[in-house]
Structure formats: C-alpha cells, structure tokens
C-alpha cells in the first residue's frame, strides 16, 4: 500500500491502472467487506481526495466517486443495451477464494505437528478420532475390571441423520481428501459407534452428522388468521414465469375480487384470464363465498393470471378439508408451473426455430 500511495504522487498511467484495479472497492462501499478491504478503501479514498484536489489534475474522479452509476457508464462503455448484459461486481470473497494462511512462523517452524504429512487437518482428525476410540476402550476395560460393565448402556440418539458427505468434510477441513481417506474416516467412525460406551464421545460424533430435512410430501397449509372484525382470512403467494402474486382470501361472503387496487373486470378484460382466477373457487364450489384482495407484479397478463390462480388455490387450502385439498392437488391447482421462457441460442433464430434452410 505504501508503494500505491507513492505512485499516486506522480500522475501516470500506472497509477491510473492501479486505480482501476481498486475501483471495485471504491465504488461499492455498501458491500460488506473485510476489515482489510475497508481500511484500504478508506485510506485510498483519503489519499485520492488529496490527490485530486490538485488544480492541474486531468483525472478528476472526485465527481465520479460520488456518482457511481454514471461512473460505471463512463468506465464501462458498452454497445450492449440489454439490462442483463450490464457489468456486475462480485463480492471480494468470491473473487479471492478462501486460502490457508502461511503455515509456519517467522523462524520457519510449522505450527501444526502433522504439517509434513501434507494433509494436516485430515490426519489430525484421524489422530483425534483414534485417541477417542482408545479412550472409550480404556473406559470399558476399567468398568469391566470393577464389574460395572452394563450390557445396555445409554445409546447415542442418532435419529434421522447421516454422515457428512465427502464435500462437506472437505469444506470443514479446508483441504481436499481422496475418497479412500473419506472411506477410512467413515469406517473408524462406524467402529466407534459400534462400541457400547460410545456415548462418551457423543458431542464429537454428532459434529460429523448431518440432520436430514424432513421432506414431507404434504402441502404446507397457510394458517387461518382472524382480523379485528372477526372475519377469517388467509394469505398465500403464487408465481408463474416471472410474475409474483400475493392474495388475501377473506371469508366475507361477498365474492368481490380486487387486484392491485382495481376491480378484476378492469384488470383482466379478457375472459380467459378471469376464468383462470375463478377456476379454483369453482372447483371447490365456493364461488360467491370469499372476498379476494390480490397484488401481482411482473410478467404478462396470462402469467399474472396463472400466478394469481396458484395463490388463490394455496390460500383456499386453509378453508377446505383434507379430501378437498387432495382433490385440488390431483387437479393440478397446487403445482407451480415450472415452464419458463427458453433462451435463444446462437446459430438459431429463436429457442427452437432454426434459420431458413437453403439448398444452395
């Protein structure tokens, strides 16, 4: 950093290039940064202010620093007008991957006693694990000597958990291990589990176990809430393509439908869209009972109608019985439509359409 500051005192191409390389840090101060980056950014900002107050400076980034979007347009001129083609900045953590710091001290002596094996964290884990196995065996022997060895000791409650996968173990150890190493690790863990008094090291074992998420096939029913007037209502969300909608279904008995503040007749002039809205209510046979209040954004008219349909069906589940809900699921009302717009490929006119084939 001293060299950077020194170079800034003489305006030159090199300093400009260094400015470019630290541009990211300067222009996006709201990004959550490392302490180093923050201090660097602040330091650089201070120095740049001093530098650019110079009257003969040809590179007045002073105004650009404050107007970051204009500065992006200035520094990254692009012929592409597509919004998605705009440049975006990655977080520094993604650009600089997590690396291990230097493994030895100033006298050259490594910190870890298994450094010279190459895979110090994995081997130290195996060493620790074996020590625990020996410890349990010693404990068992002591109990047997005293005659207190019980046949049914307290077992570890594993429940619905699995061992960490190889990738997860690599992530914990911050170093790569081979599949053979991983198999050995699991073998030793299983051996430890098979010992009757393995509950001694319960905390250690559970550290290397991952709870399986209860993947229930059942639909999550939105809870039925009551507002101040005593009217039952429930909220649900739905999506289709790029549309996102949120619907509040009230058990008023009026049958009014409001979308984004407008009446549904005005919002959806086309019959097809209104039919989509009504379908879940008609299917359940509750056409005039509920009062709908919806918000929807994104997409076109058809996708918005689809999003609203899904949201209404989900919200209705809290008012209907299990069998009726099951019937709705079978009808496909509760399944979000996975279809999205397929991208255009190069060498073709569209997603599927090829260019006209000419014989010659």
């Amino acid at each position, binding site marked *: 950093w001293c060299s950077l500051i020194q170079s800034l005192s003489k305006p030159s191409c090199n300093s400009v290039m260094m400015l470019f390389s630290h541009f990211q840090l300067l222009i996006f101060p709201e990004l959550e940064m490392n302490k180093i980056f923050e201090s660097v950014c602040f330091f650089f900002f201070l120095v740049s202010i001093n530098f650019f107050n110079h009257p003969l400076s040809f590179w007045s980034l002073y105004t650009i620093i404050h107007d970051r979007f204009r500065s992006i347009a200035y520094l990254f001129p692009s012929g592409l007008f597509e919004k998605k083609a705009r440049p975006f900045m990655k977080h520094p953590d993604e650009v600089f991957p997590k690396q291990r710091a230097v*493994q030895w001290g100033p*006298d050259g*002596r*490594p910190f870890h*006693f298994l450094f*010279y094996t190459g895979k110090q964290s994995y081997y130290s884990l195996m*060493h620790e694990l074996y020590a625990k196995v020996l410890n349990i065996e010693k404990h068992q022997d002591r109990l047997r000597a005293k005659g207190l060895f019980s046949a049914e000791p307290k077992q570890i409650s594993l429940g619905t958990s699995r061992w960490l996968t190889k990738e997860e173990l690599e992530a914990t150890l911050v170093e790569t291990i081979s599949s053979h190493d991983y198999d050995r690790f699991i073998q030793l863990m299983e051996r430890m589990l098979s010992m009757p008094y393995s509950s001694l090291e319960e905390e250690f074992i559970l550290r290397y176990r991952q709870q399986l998420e209860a993947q229930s096939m059942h639909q999550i029913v939105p809870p039925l809430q009551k507002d101040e007037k005593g009217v039952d209502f429930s909220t649900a969300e739905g999506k289709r393509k790029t549309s996102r909608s949120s619907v509040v279904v009230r058990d008023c008995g009026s049958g009014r439908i409001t979308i984004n503040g407008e009446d549904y007749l005005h919002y959806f002039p086309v019959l097809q869209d209104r039919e989509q809205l009504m379908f879940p209510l008609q299917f359940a046979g509750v056409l005039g009972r509920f009062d709908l209040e919806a918000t929807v954004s994104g997409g076109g008219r058809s996708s918005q109608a689809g999003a609203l349909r899904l949201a209404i069906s989900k919200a209705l589940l809290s008012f209907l019985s299990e069998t009726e809900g099951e019937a709705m699921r079978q009808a496909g009302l509760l399944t979000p439509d996975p279809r999205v717009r397929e991208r255009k490929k190069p060498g073709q006119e569209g997603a599927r359409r090829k260019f006209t084939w000419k014989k010659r």
Partner: protein
Amino acid sequence: MAARAFTKGLLGFRHVGAAKVKFSINGQHFATASSIKSPEIQIQSFTEKVPNPPLEKHDHFRLSELFTLKDLFDARVHLGHKKGCRHRLMEPYLYNSSLDYDILDLDKTEEHLRLALNVTAQTAYRGGIILFVSRRRQFCHLVETTAKECGEYAHTRYWQGGLLTNAHIQYGQGVRLPDLIIFLSTLNNVFQQHVAIRDAAKMNIPTIGVVDSNCNPSSITYPVPGNDDTPVAMELYCRLFKMSINRAKDKRRQMELLQGLSEPSSSSS
C-alpha cells in the same frame, strides 16, 4: 569460521547444491527448498544470542543417565527376526542367533543409541526441526503423540512422492525442511525400505533409524540396531527421544534466560 568447524561434525553432510539457495547463518547451514525467499532473519538471532554447546564435549546433556543396558534388555530390544529375514548388512550388529532367531548385540546398540540421542539433543538445542517417521500402524498413534508432546513433527501416514524432494510445490514457497529425521521403523507396510530414507539422503538431511535385523542400515546416518516390532521397545524409544528433546529445549531456554539477564552488562554483537 570457528562456528563452521563446530557444525562440521554434526551437519557435515550439508553440501548445499547449486540449485538451492545457499543460506548460511552464523555457520549453521540451511538448505531451503525455495529459490526466491529464505526464512526470516530471526533464525540468525537465535544462534547469535546463545553460544552452542561444544560438540567435542561428549554427552553434554548427560543422556547416558536416561537408560541402561538392563533397560534395553527388559524392553526386548535385542530380539530380531528369523535367519531367513536377515539383511546381510546387519550381520556386524548381530550377537548370535538361537534357534534361528537373531539376537542383536546390545553393546553396539547402546553405543549407537547414545550417539543418536546426542545428535537429537544437539539438533533440538539449536532449534532444528525433527521429524518422526514410522509406517507401522500399530505404533502410529504412539509416535504422533510423542511428537506432539515434544513440540516436534511426525509423519506416520502414507508418504506422498515429493514431500521432501518437491517441497516447494507440495507445501508452498519458502518452506523449511526438517533438520533431522528419526525413523522408528525403517520399513514400510510392504517390507521395503521407506522412501524417506532415500529422499532425506538426497536432500542432505541427517537420519536416525531403528534398524531391525531385516532392515538395510547403509543409507541411514545414525543407525540404531534394535527391535522395532515389540510395543515395549517402541515405547522405550519414544520415551528416550522425547526426554532427550525436552532436556535439550529446557537447557536452551535456561541459557537464553541467562543470556537475557547478562545482556545489559555485556556488549551485544
């Protein structure tokens, strides 16, 4: 130059090759694997402060008190393998063989062991890195615990090819290689000579090795003929090496403290 003469006997094999950075601090040679950076200058101050114990004075740390011939016999160090497993170069170290079982000469073992312990202690005193190597699964945990307790390093796992010879790629630039390697068993799991013996010889690192009657003692700098199969014998060796290293380090700390106390009065170099 006087310092150079001191270390000649101990680390006299350290001819630093042309490819490596010749890095010599106060007579103590370091062969670092990197060609760009070298260890920090703090190693210089390490040897500058405290004068090294004279190598001519045999057994400066009184390590001969640590064991007796009877201890070796009780730990079954003299038991070798059968006549069929015998290595030709181990014949000078054998006392006899009874019923085809080889018996190692404990007098020679004692002499070699004293020398080896002295070497360990002198290396540890000078702040050298000591690496314990053993490929016996039975004693892997014991060796690693020993290394941990002394504050030194151990490698009792699968030896990857270029750990010593390709160190700057394996570990990173500027790594410091071990200054002494102690083999508590010179054979690997397929009863062949451990690769590290050859690699240490290539990298000019002195080695101490417990050689059984089926091992090859030729490439090892300080061979110690002894049994490497019995748990009692292994525990004895580990205990002896650990005690000698700890003694040397304690002595070092004492001398540094004394030097630190006397420094304001004497003129520093």
